[in-house]
């Protein structure tokens, strides 16, 4: 009996570890666990992990990530999850936000280490190639407290894992697309029973000069006396939009085969991007150079040791980011003079320790402590001082961020689970109040696997380093944002793996965020952050997924998400003139939806992706003036792929059409977006044996 219990516990532990902990695939050699990540996986209905009690998590499996090989994680999330992606253009800043919160309320980790820029507090998802991510999951609202603090909207966990290669393997994919776009992907892997090595490279270049009809401005036709005799909306190209991104990721995993696993991940980014001109910019692109360059290195070493009833793990990492922003103009003599030349450097040291212990199959205890030590140097401007000597406008700051948590999870029967988490954080010398979270779930019906969940948590987000110290404008007197979140939902799943499955869930959420930080102009000509708003964000998230195998060669899978997210300013009026109270926050759509359908037949795969964003207001008062709103839009992408197996290699040929209906749309005011565009991919995976 004890042996059965122990075996079951082991299975639960390994399953949860493989889903949540950094190096899930290191468990691959444990029989059966690996199947949870099988690309053909349908939801695993029977085994509810004790670690996931009450958790609302959206997992993106490798099939979704593989489909969007040329895409950034921003695009993947837009088409496959209910969160809102705010994109400033193609290969331009893209941020994500959950449930009507702001991008800085989304905590993002890569193999356990924070990806949020400590200066800005948010993450640019356009800088994360989907090719480098093997597992991605979203922890909605309260569920994020299991992993981190500060996720007032939620958390995004991204991670890599080893392939199970025996010997050498190579994959190369070449993409060629519209607007002079060239994407190259290379992966080299080597593996044996103990070692798994992988090198991945992504290189993307695009002139990104897509054509669009500019309805925000007109060109004038003058007579010889300079009287306007005609006007028209010009067909323009996206100006100053080119980009060249290079990423390399080196991974090494070692399995001692005596319970310990060691992993190394090192990711280097070299990005050189122009910043596209606004649709209302009447300057000539030949006169201005507006460019952002980034060099980032991220490295993480992990160690995990598994025992029958406990597990410990440790991680250590280092991040070095150098950002350069240059805005130059031609003085008319060919000399490009700097109007702005800002530089920033971020060095982060990271360490984390985790431990888990279980008593029988009903209790699981977890303790975790992480530390991020940031060293930031920011230079916004070079100036000549009053005395005539040179000066720098900027700041130099260091901050330690500690986050510790204790959790206890209890599943007395298969019908009930309760989980409690206590988290405490330290930012510099500021200790956060206790962050508690409570989760409960229960199986209402075995038939249909109907499960109800509920959770509640308190949360805090500390101001970013720019919020506090940026010159000019940083406000050291800012308070932390704080809030309470509540979740309740129900899910079901029916069917079987072989022929048909259907699953779905509906979640209601309700959260209050106080002291929301917003950067606002000042009368001194610069922006400064202030604790401005109290926000009530609530709504419903619904998702559904079906998987149908009509026969051995015909397979249909459809996934859909819908969310309704009122995000209401419920604070006090700033003054009598303030009309923003009771209104939806700017740029937060009330409705978002997406559907993706995948039809496989023999070696053919057809993919259809569709997403929808409702109208977004651009003003806090929700005025419906001409510049006060962005119309809703639908977006459709399709692709068709054919694979060929030859004696010496596997080949794949794929064609993609993005913005299928050539939609004219905007995600942000005055930022042009591309119309219909195409890309073809040719992939080769040689057979060495």
């Amino acid at each position: 009996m004890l042996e059965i219990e122990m075996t079951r516990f082991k299975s639960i532990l390994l399953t949860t570890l493989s889903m949540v902990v950094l190096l899930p695939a290191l468990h691959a050699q444990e029989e059966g666990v690996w199947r949870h990540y099988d690309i053909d996986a349908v939801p695993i209905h029977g085994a509810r992990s004790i670690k996931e009690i009450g958790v609302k998590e959206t997992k993106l499996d490798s099939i979704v990530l593989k489909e969007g090989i040329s895409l950034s994680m921003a695009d993947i999330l837009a088409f496959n999850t209910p969160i809102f992606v705010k994109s400033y253009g193609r290969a331009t800043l893209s941020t994500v936000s959950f449930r009507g919160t702001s991008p800085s309320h989304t905590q993002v980790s890569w193999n356990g280490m924070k990806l949020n820029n400590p200066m800005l507090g948010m993450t640019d998802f356009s800088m994360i190639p989907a090719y480098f991510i093997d597992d991605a999951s979203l922890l909605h609202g309260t569920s994020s407290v299991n992993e981190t603090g500060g996720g007032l909207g939620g958390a995004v966990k991204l991670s890599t894992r080893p392939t199970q290669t025996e010997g050498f393997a190579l994959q190369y994919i070449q993409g060629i697309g519209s607007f002079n776009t060239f994407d190259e992907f290379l992966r080299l892997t080597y593996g044996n029973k103990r070692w798994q090595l992988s090198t991945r490279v992504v290189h993307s270049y695009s002139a990104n000069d897509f054509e669009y009809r500019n309805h925000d401005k007109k060109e004038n036709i003058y007579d010889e006396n300079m009287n306007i005799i005609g006007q028209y909306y010009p067909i323009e190209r996206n100006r100053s939009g080119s980009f060249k991104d290079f990423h390399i990721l080196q991974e090494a995993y070692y399995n001692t085969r005596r319970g310990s696993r060691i992993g190394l991940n090192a990711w280097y980014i070299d990005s050189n991007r122009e910043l596209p001109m606004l649709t209302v910019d009447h300057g000539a692109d030949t006169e201005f150079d507006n460019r952002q360059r980034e060099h980032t290195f991220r490295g993480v070493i992990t160690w995990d040791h598994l025992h029958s009833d406990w597990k410990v793990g440790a991680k250590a990492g280092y991040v070095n980011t150098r950002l350069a922003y240059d805005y130059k103009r031609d003085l008319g003599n060919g000399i490009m003079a700097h109007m702005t030349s800002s530089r920033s450097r971020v060095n982060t040291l990271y360490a984390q320790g985790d431990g888990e212990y279980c008593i029988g199959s009903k209790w699981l205890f977890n303790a975790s402590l992480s530390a991020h030590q940031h060293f930031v140097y920011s230079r916004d401007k070079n100036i000549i001082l009053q005395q005539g000597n040179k000066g720098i406008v900027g700041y130099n700051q260091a901050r330690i961020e500690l986050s510790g948590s204790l959790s206890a999870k209890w599943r007395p029967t298969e019908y009930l689970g309760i989980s409690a988490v206590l988290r405490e954080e330290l930012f510099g010398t500021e200790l956060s109040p206790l962050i508690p979270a409570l989760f409960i779930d229960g199986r209402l019906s075995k038939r249909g696997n109907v499960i109800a969940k509920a959770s509640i948590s308190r949360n805090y987000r500390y101001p970013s380093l720019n919020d506090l110290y940026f010159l000019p404008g940083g406000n050291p007197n800012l308070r932390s944002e704080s809030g309470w979140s509540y979740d309740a939902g129900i899910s079901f799943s029916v069917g079987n793996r072989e022929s048909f499955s259907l699953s779905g869930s509906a979640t209601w959420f309700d959260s209050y965020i106080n002291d929301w930080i917003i950067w606002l102009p000042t009368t001194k000509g610069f922006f400064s952050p202030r604790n401005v708003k109290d926000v009530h964000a609530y709504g419903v998230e619904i998702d559904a997924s079906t998987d149908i195998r009509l026969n051995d060669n015909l397979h249909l899978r459809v996934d859909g998400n819908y969310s309704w997210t009122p995000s209401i300013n419920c604070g006090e009026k700033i003054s009598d003139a303030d009309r923003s109270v009771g209104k939806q926050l700017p740029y937060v759509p009330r409705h978002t939806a997406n559907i993706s359908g995948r039809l496989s037949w023999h070696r053919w795969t057809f993919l259809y992706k569709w997403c929808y964003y409702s109208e977004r207001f651009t003003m806090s008062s929700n005025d419906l003036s001409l510049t006060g709103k962005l119309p809703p839009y639908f977006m459709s992408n399709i692709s068709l792929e054919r694979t060929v197996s030859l004696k010496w290699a596997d080949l794949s040929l794929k064609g993609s059409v993005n913005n299928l209906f050539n939609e004219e749309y905007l995600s942000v005011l005055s930022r042009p977006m591309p119309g219909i565009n195409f890309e073809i991919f040719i992939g080769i995976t040689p057979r060495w044996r």
Partner: protein
Amino acid sequence: MRRLLLILTLFAVGCMEWDYGLEEDFDIEASARGLFICNEGNFQYGNATLSYYDPDTKRLENEVFYRANAMKLGDVAQSMTIRDGIGWVVVNNSHVVFAIDINTFKEVGRITGLTSPRYMHFVSDEKAYITQIWDNRIFIVNPKRYEITGYIDIPNMTMEQGSTEQMVQKGKYLYVNCWSYQNRILKIDTESDTIVGELEVGIQPTSLALDCNGKLWTITDGGYDSSPYGYEAPALYRIDPENFTIEHTFSFKKGDAPSEVQLNGAGDTLYWINDDIWAMDVTAERVPVRPFLDSRGTIYYGLTVDPKSGDVYIADAVDYTQQGKIYRYSKEGELINEFYVGVIPGSFCWR
């Protein structure tokens, strides 16, 4: 099945609703008085707008540029000036100055090729100056041809720290305040387009005015805490333009952020913003004890005085992300009217 296909088609086909292309006809009486309000909009969002208010009928029209021309005004409408029935709207981050008919609001031309324009001043029908930020030159333009004809290089100023702002002219000399990370007033000979004098004042003079006695006024904001350029108590300065010397300094508290020095039509009363709204006789030797109008949680961002009636118009940016509000007060401080305009109303222009 057909119904399903129809629904699927509706879902799939794009339907972003655009409402562009419609030009509205305005016909303001040529003799009518009116006030243009430049609403900056949010930097980098291209939502600047132009509002028009008739002080006699209290008629308000918002987004007049967009409505009359079926195109956006642009990104950060900084200022406007009028000459001979043509309004010149300086749109800073769109790198353009639009010329519009002030009766129809229709565009009649535009000046491009600018770095980051702030203000425009006419020297003659065929010569005007346009000041810039992030450029160490004042641009000389021919408004008739919408052409840049030359530059005035500013000594001891880099591009990155470049900042020339408001301009007033007395005789053949033009005076310009240099604001961002600057501390001086320039004197320019408009015949030779050369700088003939510089006067050091406090840190960051924000604005400039010429009173009925021919005296120049400027007000500094004092910089900000931890600024490498310095941080000091701001001050109001009365300057003798002939000798180009400071006649009187009226100091404020360190941490204050005064701005927008303006004069009434007669040029004998000075107004400015320093959280509250302040008014002072140009011959006064000290700043009044009490403000002309108290702040009431408002964020006063712009100020003008009706040159005819003396009514004081104050722009409230509210939270900077919604329509701002204009308060119209009599010169005695009685509220006459209030109305909403565009996002961040910052400057005014009387016709």
